[in-house]
């Protein structure tokens, strides 16, 4: 059932392709050692975030964990800014200061990229709290993995959201593993969705490999939340084709299991549906795929030729400046000075001359 807010399906298929091709390139660049740190790929899970974005308005709040490339791309952050962030460049979506796990894009209401498992779930309740406080009808989408549901912060956040009736949808991307630990080995319940029962909110299981199921399931909840704020919990059953991170060969699971999910590939599935319904030709699909590949390729070129952040960016964001009205001092952290080193003389000068004049952080 199509809702007025829902986004065009062909367009969302193009987004899924962009995510897939972008991450394939990222993987290649990681292996070429152009990308540092940890890098977690979303390949296989694309229907979850694209389905969710298709069901929401651009001004709804979105926040997620560290497997976040797709969430930014789906929201409209450019492939260039995403790749440049992986390269640690000044043109990245977090100016090269966040990295793979900490994508942020205020303009597109993408509130991160959070790498402490479960720690962003309370933040989502705060964003939803703010929306309700200001009487806005925005919904907050909070994505997290199956590994997050055993963290204290997760439970506290769900309780607060239930208690205060906050407009937030908790979206558990259940890919059945937290690193090498299967849900069976981590969680006291048979079904993750049953966690929601403790917090008195509507909940359900959605096939996270199906774009349409995700979109329609969420559309339904969102319509209800916009009318009267309340939280909801959704377990998306999905699968990551790759290892947990780039260094993980994923030997804890079987080839057969992976193949089973690959047969349900979200891109193949939506393509087949659209083709069957006469909404997409093979030529159109090929053209879209080529466009996605080109965008991924040129994002690498963009990242390569982008500048490194200047060294003094290091001190630029420790504190936010204060406006006129604020009396607070020390708005911008400054470099520790080289001064005062090697005072070799024991002679008492006592002029006070080597007292740092501005001295806040001499």
């Amino acid at each position, binding site marked *: 059932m199509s809702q007025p807010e829902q986004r065009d399906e062909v367009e969302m298929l193009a987004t899924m392709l962009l995510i897939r091709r972008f991450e394939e390139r990222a993987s290649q660049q990681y292996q070429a050692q152009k990308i540092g740190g940890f890098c977690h790929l979303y390949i296989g899970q694309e229907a979850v975030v694209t389905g969710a974005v298709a069901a929401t308005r651009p001004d709804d709040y979105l*926040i997620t964990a560290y497997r976040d490339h797709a969430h930014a791309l789906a929201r409209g952050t450019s492939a260039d800014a995403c790749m440049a962030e992986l390269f640690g460049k000044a043109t990245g*979506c977090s100016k090269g200061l966040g990295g793979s796990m900490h994508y942020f894009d205020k303009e597109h209401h993408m509130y991160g990229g959070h790498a402490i498992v479960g720690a962003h779930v*309370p*933040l989502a309740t*705060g964003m939803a709290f703010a*929306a309700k406080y200001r009487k806005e009808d925005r919904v907050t989408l909070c994505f997290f993995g199956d590994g997050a549901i055993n963290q204290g912060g997760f439970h506290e956040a769900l309780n607060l959201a239930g208690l205060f009736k906050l407009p937030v949808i908790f979206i558990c991307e259940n890919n059945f593993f937290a690193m090498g630990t299967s849900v069976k080995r981590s969680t006291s319940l048979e079904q993750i969705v049953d966690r929601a029962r403790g917090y008195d909110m509507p909940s359900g299981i959605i096939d996270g490999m199906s774009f349409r199921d995700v979109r329609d399931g969420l559309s339904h909840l969102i319509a209800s939340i916009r009318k009267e704020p309340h939280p909801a919990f959704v377990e998306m059953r999905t699968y990551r084709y790759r290892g947990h991170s780039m260094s993980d060969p994923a030997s804890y699971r079987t080839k057969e299991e992976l193949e089973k999910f690959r047969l349900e590939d979200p891109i193949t599935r939506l393509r087949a549906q659209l083709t069957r319904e006469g909404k997409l030709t093979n030529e159109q699909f090929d053209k879209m795929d080529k466009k996605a590949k080109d965008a991924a390729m040129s994002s690498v070129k963009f990242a390569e030729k982008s500048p490194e952040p200047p060294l003094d960016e290091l001190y630029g*964001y420790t504190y936010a400046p204060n406006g006129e009205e604020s009396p607070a001092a020390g708005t911008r952290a400054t470099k520790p000075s080289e001064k005062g080193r090697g*005072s070799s003389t024991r002679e008492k000068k006592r002029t006070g001359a080597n*007292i740092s004049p501005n001295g806040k952080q001499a």
Partner: protein
Amino acid sequence: MREITYRQALNEALAEEIARDPNVFLMGEEVAEYNGAYKVSQGLLDRFGPTRIIDTPISENGFAGLGIGAAMVGLRPIVEFMTFSFSLVAFDQIVNNAPNMLTMSGGQFNVPITFRGPNGPAHQLGATHSHATECLYANVPGLKICTPATPRDAKGLLKAAVRDNNPVLVLECELFYSHKGMVEDEDVDLLIPLGEAELKQEGSDVTIICYAQTVPIALAAAENLAKENINAEVIDLRSIKPLDWPAVFKSVAKTHRVVIAEQDRPWCGIGSEIAYRIQQEIFDELDAPIQRVSQEDVPMPYNEALEQAVLPSAAKIVAAVKKIC
């Protein structure tokens, strides 16, 4: 000017800021219907209603995080911890989320939030309830920390904290809520900048640097020392981060002797940093080794006499001064 309590001063600061800015709200355990565990928020629920004054369950990690998320999208929350000993349950939110967001997002998201509540040992509360947390939090770039010791500073610093665009910890003194002091009349918008120390007493022989609970004991020590013709200069730091280095250096350049009186424990402490900076920046001004008076480095005992032995005191400060004067 009129005389009010530290508690009343904080209450006025809260009321004024909540009235001034619709984005400001107060949240915490027992802040609304109970009027505050220490009655700091007395009357605020009646005046501002339950959308601005919000009771939470006992869920520090959850509501600290909620505040940070709300601040990311433009609200200016004041989050009360019943005491900062309980903020440790929310340590990850205070240390990992609030102060890192601005840098991690390349400058896109600042977090204008105030965390406030009583801090430091009170009286015979034992090891779990007696934490001074300033050393722990001072280690974190991106946080600001102030430690008001008087009603006037409590009001002015809290109001400045709420208006600051960064996460600020206002570490109140649990034992001072009933202390009285002179504060500007209510029609004055009293703002005390973060990072400005106050010269409490001029002197020429030694500088006693103090903050929070050590302010009254440093002043008492100075009074005793005066009887023996030792003139101590007393500086209340008021803010731990940013710290008013010029005020410290100026005084040391005058007295050439320093005693640092700390509320917290000694290891990697506030005094370690101050002593290091003094010797690094104005080594030649020193005529004697810097002395420190702090808590003993042990979990806080319940027994009253043992607790007193752990805590800094006027007598300990006097003894430290006499070692170098």
